[in-house]
């Protein structure tokens, strides 16, 4: 039996390297079932590398990443995906040689419990209109982001890793993505979010971890946000 008090995702002493460069120097944090947790930090703090290390797409990594109690650190990324984790990468990863529909249907369903296409179109009505488009990369930036999130909702993954989903998008689209994340949380998804924009993060997150130089240097919950705003400004340099 799964211990209900245990976190869904527990990261301990996670270290990662790109070739010779040592990026993560022992990252510790956890995400409980149904939470939206945000990693904050400046450029180069190691947020994206943390996401990629969880997903198994970093050259070399050590430490421990436990998901639903199972150790994932030695697994290949295709096995990690099938364990129930899905990634929406920073660069969105929409495929130019695939139509919008093919992009949406690309990630295989790994277990039951994913959203139906109708539910996805409810969240992102634009996608339904653009379904016939011949090339995924012909969509606008906002539509590509919706496609990148929409396609991982079908798969039945329980933990979604969203890497800077609002980067470079217009305010009205950022609002729509915020609404979507809150709606996904209500539907029981657990979300780990990477953000530089903590104003956006504060509208969706339950808890925050702050990263610097490949380590977690601070953490607080949403209710403690106001008391920590000044510290945060310092951390993030905003």
């Amino acid at each position, binding site marked *: 039996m799964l211990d209900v008090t245990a976190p869904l995702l527990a990261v301990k002493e996670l270290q990662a390297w790109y070739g010779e460069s040592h990026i993560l120097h022992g990252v510790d944090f956890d995400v409980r079932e149904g939470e939206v947790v945000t990693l904050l930090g400046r450029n180069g703090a190691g947020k994206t590398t943390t996401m990629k290390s969880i997903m198994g797409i970093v050259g070399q990594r050590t430490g421990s990443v436990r998901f639903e109690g199972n150790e994932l650190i030695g697994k290949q990324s295709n096995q990690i995906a099938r364990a129930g984790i899905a990634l929406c*990468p920073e660069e969105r990863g929409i495929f*130019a040689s695939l139509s919008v529909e093919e992009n949406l249907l690309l990630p295989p369903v*790994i277990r039951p419990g994913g959203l139906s296409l109708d539910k996805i179109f409810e969240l992102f009505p634009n996608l339904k209109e653009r379904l016939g488009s011949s090339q995924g990369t012909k969509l606008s930036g906002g539509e590509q982001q919706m496609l990148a999130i929409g396609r991982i909702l079908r798969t039945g993954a329980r933990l979604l890793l969203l890497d800077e989903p609002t980067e470079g998008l217009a305010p009205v689209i950022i609002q729509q993505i915020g609404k979507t994340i809150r709606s996904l949380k209500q539907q029981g998804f657990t979300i780990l979010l990477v953000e530089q924009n903590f104003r956006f993060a504060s509208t969706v997150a339950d808890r925050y971890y702050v990263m610097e130089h490949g380590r977690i240097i601070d953490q607080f919950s949403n209710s403690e946000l106001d008391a920590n705003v000044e510290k945060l400004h310092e951390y993030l340099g905003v």
Partner: protein
Amino acid sequence: MFEICLPVLLGGKCIPSGALFGQLLIGLINGSFYALLSLGLAVIFGMLNIINFSHGAQYMLGAFVAYLMLQYSGLGYWPALIIAPLIVGLTGVIIERVFLQWLYKLDHLYGLLLTFGLALIIEGVVRNQYGSAGLPYTMPDSLRGGQNLGFMFLPNYRAWVIVASLGVCIGTWFVIERTRLGAYLRAATENPTLVRAFGINVPVMITLTYGFGVALAAFAGVMAAPIYNVSPQMGSELIIVVFAVVVIGGMGSILGAIVTGFGLGVVEGLTKVFFPEASNTVIFVIMAIVLLVRPAGLFGRRA
């Protein structure tokens, strides 16, 4: 019978229709082999980033496996058409696992040199065993004879080669461009890391893709066996032209490989009729022009 004349500007040469259609047919036959082989090369290059120089040797192996099946187990053309590509495809799977998988992150040159070396070894071993004189392979009885179309005589076996090649090419194109499996392949060509992070076993897909590309070459080899003699050098004679076809069509383009394969076969055939002196070089002239005007090839995606 009637005559077809070139415009006076081009020399005003007149050709009997029988000769013209005969060469057109030979062009289509050659085009069938160009298309099958360049399709395999395009599939392999797209997915593995490897320029498979042993493709000609693998085509030759297909013909030899068919020959040996007939010699030692009495299995004829039709079983060979299925079994020989499977056997040669399996050797491809082994080559990918043992050698090629270590080269993907290196320069193209390494893959090219490795597969070129393999081609020399395969050809040398076969020559050592069976000599370089061609071995005959008999045509299946069901495809002997031909049809008199009035303006030309169409041998059944040649018609079959064209139809079978077109069928396999269109089938491959359909799978790659129109199915879920094909979407995985196209996506993995663009961004294998992300496709793998969606839960798809990309390394296995790459291995099978190489096996399939090699099996296509072997399939062409079996089809070639009754037309040409089965000989160790049958692949290396053809492969240079096929590489020119691939360059003209655009590296990695599926449709480009098919259309250019058949198209250049026909162009070559027509050149034989109207200007025979140039028939051996016309494809290379076209290649030079295409490289100057459209370096990515006629159907190439990347500039």
